[in-house]
């Protein structure tokens, strides 16, 4: 697991108040929304903030989020390709 994957899991747990969840409990390919972690629409908005704040990526269209936030893997891929910091 890359540092970015671990870093993302840590910040997701912290930013989205996923109480009692450990980094090791989130699988890289697990769905973040729906059956997986069960995140909701406001969590998705907080993830958009996280992308901008931590990686300098601005999503112009929130619908893009659906694919990017599919799993930790998809998020990490997207960040690697687009990060400005």
């Amino acid at each position, binding site marked *: 697991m890359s540092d970015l994957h671990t870093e993302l899991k840590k910040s997701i747990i912290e930013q989205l108040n996923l109480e009692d969840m450990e980094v090791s409990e989130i699988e890289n390919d697990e769905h973040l929304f729906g059956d997986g972690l069960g995140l909701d*629409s*406001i969590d998705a*908005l907080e993830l*958009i*903030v996280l992308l901008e704040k931590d990686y300098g990526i601005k999503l112009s269209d*929130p619908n893009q989020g659906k694919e990017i936030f599919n799993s930790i893997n998809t998020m990490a891929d997207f960040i690697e390709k687009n990060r400005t910091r």
Partner: protein
Amino acid sequence: MKGIAVTGMGIISAIGRDIEETHLSLKYGKNGISFPEILPTKHKDLPVGEIKLSNSELSELLNLPEDHSYTRAALLGIYAIKELLENSAYDQFPEDTGFISGTSIGGIDMTEKHFYDYKNNPEKRKYIQAQHPGYTTEKIAEYFGLNGMITTISTACSSSANAIMMGAQMIESGKLMRVIVGGSDCLTKFTLNGFNSLKILSTKNSRPFDNARDGLNLGEAAGYLMLEAEDCINGKTVLGRVSGYGNANDAFHQTASSENGEGAFQAISKALKKANLSTTDIDFINAHGTGTKNNDLSESVALKRIFGDKVPYFSSTKGFTGHTLGAAGAVEAIFSLLAIQKGEMFPNLNFSTEMLETGLGPVTGFQKKNINTMLSNSFGFGGNCTSLIFQRNE
């Protein structure tokens, strides 16, 4: 006589500074959407329904002393109620006139302006209490010397619709003979940034009910109605009647509307029941229609559930004014009463394609039509859904 009489109204919004100008804008499809010039925001690229009068210009128009402490919402509210007063049979409002005002933002604009001055600048401290929404209401009441029952309703975007509902109830129950109801909200950084963080602001003019709609435009406005008991009417012109109202909680999400539009469905059902009307009696609907993906779909689903295959003519006027939050219910109550009085349907601007899910299309051009009964919807954060029914005075 059915319903509570409306005997006066006054309005200021991005499409006009009085009833007449507002009506002409609605009639000729002239929207009030622009980029922010008066609101000090860095989001200069987000279109808003801004009233192009600064606080000092408003103060001058209202002949206020320089050291006043009115919030922008209070200034706009006074401006609108002055028109109401001028059009009423009173030189000044009788002292026992009630006042129920809706606002979502209250005086947050003053907190934004002066928060960092409070510590070192005692002169600015008068604005500390302005943060409380009740302050704005009380300043307006003070201006007009109102001493009756005064209260503020803050239920986000249904605030002033609830103020109208409450006023009608107070008159029905005999607690008040006469009450000014409505609401006022101004643009703030608080709301612009907040709605922007929810990704529900469009960077273009909003397109309510369009398949490609991508968000709302915020706006600012004040709108007020005078409601009076039968004994007070004495031959005055009755502009229309509030005959039905209903409120229900959507019980779905902090801010988003449910997929089946349950809250809206229940609010409309209750309003129809209160007015003792059936679905076929509704001639025209002023929809909440904010232009967000979520609201317009949820509201459309609710309309289909209520009206089946026979959804009446409907239109959202948010494309004209932007979403004026706590003032929206009162602004659209005034549009509804104008529609009844003039026999006109005002268009839903910027619409081109029906949404795939429901296939519903709003009224897109100005049309003459005899309208006896209007439904007006206002849905707020926290799941607070309100529907009002206005009828022609028979």
